[in-house]
C-alpha cells in the first residue's frame, strides 16, 4: 500500500512541473482574455453601444403632410398632396453581382436604362449603407410590384414622397406658386427655421409666402432593423409623429378666377378682382402662366428651362411683379387732386384743339380733331389729354401730382401677401435728378399728368386706387389669405381681418364727385360702347398706355360696381392687356364680361351669351 502511495507520488513529481506550467499558461491566458473582455465591455462599452444602436436603428423621417389650400368656397382644394414614391438603393447591402441583376430588374420596372441606374451608384458609393435615390415620382403600383418580390430586390427600399398636385391649375399658378427641394442658398438662410437638406420648400406664391404654416413639422420614426434591413421590433419602435401643415383658405373665388381667366383669354396681361371693403382678392389672373405640375414629372428640368427662357416670362405674376404706365387711368387721381385742392373750377372749360405746345414740344390728344371746350367731368369721360396736360402743367404742378399719386399708394408696396411685389414709380424732380441726373422739365409734368412718362404702377396698386375712390378715403391691404385651419379638426386657427393700409384726409365730397365722373366714363365716355352689361352699374376709367408701338397700346381698365351700392357690396375690377397683343380694346371687354359674370352669377359662356358676344365662343384660344 505504501508502495502504491509512493508510486503515485513519483508520478505526481514526474509530471508536476509540466502540468503546473500548463496550468500557469492556462491561467495567464484566461486572465488576459478576461482583461480584454473587460476592455471591450467596460472601457470601450459606450462606443460599441453607440455602434449597436447605429447599426440596428435607422431613423426615417415621416414627412408631414403639407397643408391643403382652398378657395373661399372651401369645398374642393386647389392643391392636394398625391402619393408618390422614391425608390432608393442601399449599395452596401449588395454585392457587385447582385447590383447588376437588381439594376437589370429595376430598369424594366422603372423604365430607365440599366446603365442610368448604375450611374446613380458610382463606385465610391458601393460600400455605403445609406439609401441612394434611384428615381422619384414612382407610382404606388410599381412599389407594390417591388414589395411583392422584395427578395429579388436586395438593398432596394422606397419612401413616400408626396407631391403637390395643383388642381385645375392654369391661372392659379401665380397665386399658389409651387414647391421644390430647398437649395443650398435657401438652406443657409433658413437653417434655423427648421429646414433640412432635403426639405421641400415653397418657391413662389402662397406656397412660399405661407411656407411656415403649410409645411408642418416632419416626424421621425426610429426603426430598428435587422441585418436584412427589415423592420423589426415593431413593439419597441419609437415614433415622433409629424405635425401636419395647416390648411389655408384663400380669399380667391374659384368661379370668379375662372371667369376672369377666360375673360382675359390668351392675352398677355392681367385681370384682378378685389373687394374694396376688405382688400380681399377674389381673382388674380396673370397671363401667360405656367403649370407647376410640370415640375413633379420626369421632364421637370426641361419644363423649368422652357418656362424660364420663354420671352413672355410666364413666371412673372404681372398683377404685382410688373408695373406699367397707368396712362389715362391716372386722370382719376388728377381729378381728385384738382377737386380737393380746388386748383380749378370743375365747370371751367379748357379748349382742346387736339394738341398742345409745351416749350418746343407738341403733345397730342388721342382725338386728333380735338374735344373742343371740356370741363373736368367731360374731360375725364372723354379722357381728354389736353385738359389734363393743362391741369397738370398750369394748375397743379408736379409736386401736387406726385403727392396725390402717393396718397393713393402709388410708388409704395401694397403689402399683399405674395412674395416679389414691386412698387412702381412716382416720379418727382428729385427722383429724376437722382436717377437720371437730369432736371425735371415741363414736358415731364405733362407726361405725368396723363399717366405716362416715368410713372408706373402695378395692377394691384391700380385696384387700390379704385378702392380709395369707392371707399371714400380708405384702402384695405389687399390680401389672399382668409383663414388658417387645423388640418385635423378643421377648426379655424386664425381669421384674417381686413387691415387698413392707408386712410386719406381727402374730403368725401371730392370722392363723390370723382365717383360720378367715373360713372360718366361708362355712361357718356370712352367705355360707353364697350361696357354693355346690364347686370350692374359700373364706374371706371380706361387707359391706353403708349409704349412706342404704332398700332398697339397697353390697355387698362379700372372699374368698380355696383356704382350706387355701399362698398361692402362692390367689387373692383382691374384689367390690363399689354401692347404685345393685337389691339382690341380688350381690357374693357374683359372687364365687361367679368362684371356680367359676377353680378349675373354667370360663367364665361353664359356671360358672353347675355352680352350678345356669342362670337367670342370662337375666341377661346385655349
Amino acid at each position, binding site marked *: *500500500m505504501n508502495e502504491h*502511495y509512493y508510486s503515485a507520488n513519483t508520478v505526481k513529481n514526474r509530471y508536476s512541473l509540466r502540468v*503546473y506550467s500548463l496550468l500557469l499558461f492556462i491561467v495567464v491566458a484566461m486572465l488576459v482574455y478576461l482583461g480584454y473582455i473587460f476592455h471591450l465591455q467596460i472601457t470601450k462599452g459606450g462606443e460599441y453601444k453607440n*455602434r*449597436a444602436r447605429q447599426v440596428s436603428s435607422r431613423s426615417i423621417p415621416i414627412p408631414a403632410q403639407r397643408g391643403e389650400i382652398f378657395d373661399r368656397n372651401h369645398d374642393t382644394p386647389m392643391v392636394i398632396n398625391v402619393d408618390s414614391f422614391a425608390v432608393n438603393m442601399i449599395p452596401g447591402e449588395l454585392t457587385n453581382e447582385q447590383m447588376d441583376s437588381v439594376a437589370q430588374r429595376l430598369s424594366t420596372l422603372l423604365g430607365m436604362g440599366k446603365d442610368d441606374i448604375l450611374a446613380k451608384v458610382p463606385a465610391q458609393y458601393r460600400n455605403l449603407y445609406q439609401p441612394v435615390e434611384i428615381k422619384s415620382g414612382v407610382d404606388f403600383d410599381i412599389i407594390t410590384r417591388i414589395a411583392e418580390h422584395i427578395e429579388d430586390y436586395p438593398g432596394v427600399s422606397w419612401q413616400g414622397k408626396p407631391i403637390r398636385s395643383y388642381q385645375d391649375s392654369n391661372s392659379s399658378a401665380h397665386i399658389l406658386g409651387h414647391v421644390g427641394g430647398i437649395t443650398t442658398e435657401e438652406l443657409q438662410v433658413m437653417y434655423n427655421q427648421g429646414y433640412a437638406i432635403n426639405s421641400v420648400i415653397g418657391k413662389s406664391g402662397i406656397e412660399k409666402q405661407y411656407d411656415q404654416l403649410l409645411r408642418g413639422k416632419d416626424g421621425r420614426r426610429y426603426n430598428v432593423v435587422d*441585418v*436584412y434591413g427589415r423592420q*423589426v421590433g415593431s413593439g419597441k419602435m419609437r415614433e415622433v409623429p409629424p405635425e401636419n401643415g395647416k390648411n389655408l383658405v384663400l380669399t380667391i373665388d374659384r368661379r370668379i378666377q375662372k371667369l376672369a381667366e377666360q375673360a382675359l383669354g390668351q392675352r398677355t396681361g392681367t385681370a384682378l378682382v378685389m373687394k374694396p371693403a376688405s382688400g380681399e382678392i377674389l381673382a388674380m389672373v396673370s397671363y401667360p402662366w405656367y403649370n407647376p405640375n410640370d415640375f413633379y414629372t420626369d421632364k421637370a428640368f426641361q419644363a423649368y428651362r422652357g418656362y424660364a427662357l420663354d420671352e413672355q416670362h410666364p413666371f412673372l405674376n404681372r398683377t404685382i411683379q410688373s408695373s406699367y404706365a397707368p396712362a389715362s387711368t391716372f386722370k382719376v387721381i388728377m381729378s381728385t387732386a384738382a377737386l380737393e385742392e380746388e386748383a380749378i373750377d370743375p365747370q371751367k372749360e379748357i379748349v382742346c384743339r387736339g394738341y398742345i405746345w409745351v416749350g418746343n414740344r407738341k403733345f397730342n390728344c388721342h382725338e386728333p380733331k380735338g374735344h373742343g371746350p371740356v370741363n373736368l367731368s367731360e374731360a375725364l369721360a372723354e379722357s381728354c389729354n389736353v385738359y389734363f396736360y393743362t391741369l397738370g402743367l398750369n394748375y397743379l404742378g408736379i409736386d401736387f401730382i406726385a403727392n396725390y399719386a402717393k396718397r393713393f399708394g402709388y410708388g409704395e408696396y401694397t403689402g399683399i401677401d405674395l412674395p416679389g411685389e414691386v412698387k412702381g414709380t412716382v416720379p418727382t424732380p428729385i427722383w429724376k435728378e437722382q436717377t437720371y441726373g437730369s432736371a425735371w422739365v415741363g414736358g415731364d409734368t405733362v407726361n405725368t399728368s396723363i399717366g405716362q412718362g416715368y410713372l408706373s404702377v402695378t395692377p394691384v396698386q391700380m385696384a387700390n386706387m379704385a378702392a380709395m375712390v369707392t371707399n371714400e378715403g380708405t384702402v384695405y391691404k389687399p390680401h389672399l389669405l382668409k383663414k388658417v385651419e387645423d388640418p385635423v379638426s378643421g377648426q379655424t386657427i386664425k381669421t384674417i381681418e381686413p387691415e387698413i393700409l392707408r386712410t386719406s384726409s381727402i374730403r368725401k365730397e371730392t370722392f363723390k364727385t370723382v365717383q360720378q365722373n367715373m360713372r360718366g366714363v361708362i355712361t357718356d365716355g370712352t367705355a360707353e360702347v364697350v361696357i354693355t352689361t346690364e347686370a350692374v352699374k359700373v364706374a371706371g376709367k380706361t387707359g391706353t398706355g403708349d409704349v412706342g408701338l404704332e398700332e398697339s397700346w397697353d390697355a387698362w381698365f379700372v372699374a368698380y360696381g355696383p356704382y350706387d351700392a355701399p362698398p361692402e357690396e362692390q367689387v373692383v375690377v382691374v384689367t390690363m392687356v399689354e401692347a404685345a397683343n393685337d389691339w382690341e380694346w380688350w381690357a374693357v371687354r374683359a372687364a365687361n364680361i367679368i362684371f356680367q359674370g359676377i353680378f349675373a352669377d354667370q360663367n364665361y359662356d353664359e356671360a358672353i351669351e347675355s352680352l350678345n358676344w356669342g362670337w367670342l365662343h370662337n375666341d377661346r384660344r385655349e
Partner: protein
Amino acid sequence: MIGENDGLLNRQRSGSIFEFDFLTFLSMLSLMCIGGLFIYSSGVNAEGQLISREYVLQIVWIATALILYFLLQLPHYNTMQKLSIQIYVALLLLLIVTLLFGRTVKGARSWLGLFGFGIQPSEFMKIGLIIALASFFQHRKNEIGSMGTFLLALSLTLLPMGLILLQPDMGTTLVYIPLFIVIGFIAGVNRRALLLLLLFVLFTVFFAVIPVWENYILQQEIRFLEIFRRSNLVFFTSATLGFVGLIAFLGYRFAKSRFFLYFGSTGLLLSLSLLSSYLFRVILKDYQIMRLIVFIKPEVDPQGSGWHIIQSLTAVGSGGFWGKGFLEGTQSHYQFLPEQSTDFIFSIIAEEWGFIGSFVILSLFAVILIRGLIISLHSGDDFGVLIGAGVVFMIFFHLVINIGMAIGIMPITGIPLFFLSYGGSSLWTATIGLALIQNIHLRRYKY
C-alpha cells in the same frame, strides 16, 4: 464523511459519493444550462417569436450527455487504456465512413446521420486521439524521448487529421496538432522535436498567410514577398534553404559544433515550411485563408468574414457591465450576429449578460480547467495525467479560439465553445472528457 480526517497514508478508499468532484460537475452543469438558455435566446427573433427549436434538441443532448457522464463512471478509466487501439481504429473507420457516406453541411462532409441525429465523428476523434496518445506515451514510457516515439505519435495524430482535412473541415483539424504538442510535452517527448514541429506549423501558417495579408489587409505590394507568391521563386528559395540546411548538418557531423545543428535545423525548417505553405495555398482558396487573418482588420471585408467579427465585437462591446438582459440583445435578435447558437454563442451571452456574464463563463471554465489539471496530476498514473491534461487542454484550446473569435483576436474557424455551443457531438465530446476526469478523481491511488 468518515475518514476525511484520516492520515495521508490512509487516503486509499473505495469510491463513495463524497469522493465525487462536485466542483467540476456543477461547473459543467452550469455551463450546460447557460448554453441551453442562450441557444433558446438565439432562436428568438426580433419579434420575440421562437424561430428555432434547437434548444429542445440541446436539452435532449444535455440529458443524454449527463447519462453518459454517469455511465462512464462505472468502468475504471484504465479500461480506456486497454481499449485505446479499438477506440482509435473504430473512430478512424467512422471518419472514413463519414468521408464516404456523410452528409455535407456548409461545404464539409463531416456529418454522419445516425437514427435521425447527426453526429460529427471528427469531434469524438479528439477524445479518441487523447486516449490513443496517452496510452501510447505510457506504453513507450521508457523510450519517451526517442525520435521514434515522436514520429509514431505524430503519425497517430496526422492520420485522423488527414481524414478530416479531406472532408474538408480545416477548423476542426486545427485542434489536433496543439493537442499532440501539449500531450507530448506533458508526457516528456523530445522537446526539440516538439519545438521544431511547433515552429514548422507556425511558419507554414505565417508564410501561407503573408501574401493574402499583403493583398487584402495591407493592400499594397511589397516586392520582397514575391518569394511567397511565385511558384518558381518558392521552389528556388526552398531548395536553397534546404541545401544550406543539409550542408550544415554535414558540417555538424564533422565539426560537432552546435552552431551547425541550429543553422541546419533552421534552414530545413524554413525550407519545409515554405514548401508546405505553398501547398497550403494551393489547397485552400484565398477567401479561406482570408478568414484566418481577417480579424486583424475586419474593416477590409465588411461584407464577408469581417462582417462576423464586426457584428460579434459590437455585440460583446455593447453588452457593457450588466448586459442588455436576457432576450434583450439587439445584435443577436435582429440577426446581425451570425451562427449565434454555435460559433458565436459567447457573443450573445456577453451581449445579454454583459461583463458579469463573461466573467461567470470564464470562471466556470477556469474551475473546470484548474480543477481538472489538479485532479489529473493527482491521478497517480501516467495515463491518468495524460488524458486529464489532454482533456483540459482540448477544452482550453476551444475556449481560446472560440472566445477569441468572438472578441476579435482569433481567426474565424468554426470551432465550438464546449458545453455552450449548440450541437450534440461537441457536447458529448466535452462531457466524455470531463467524465474521464471525474473517473480519474474517483479512482485516484487505486490500481
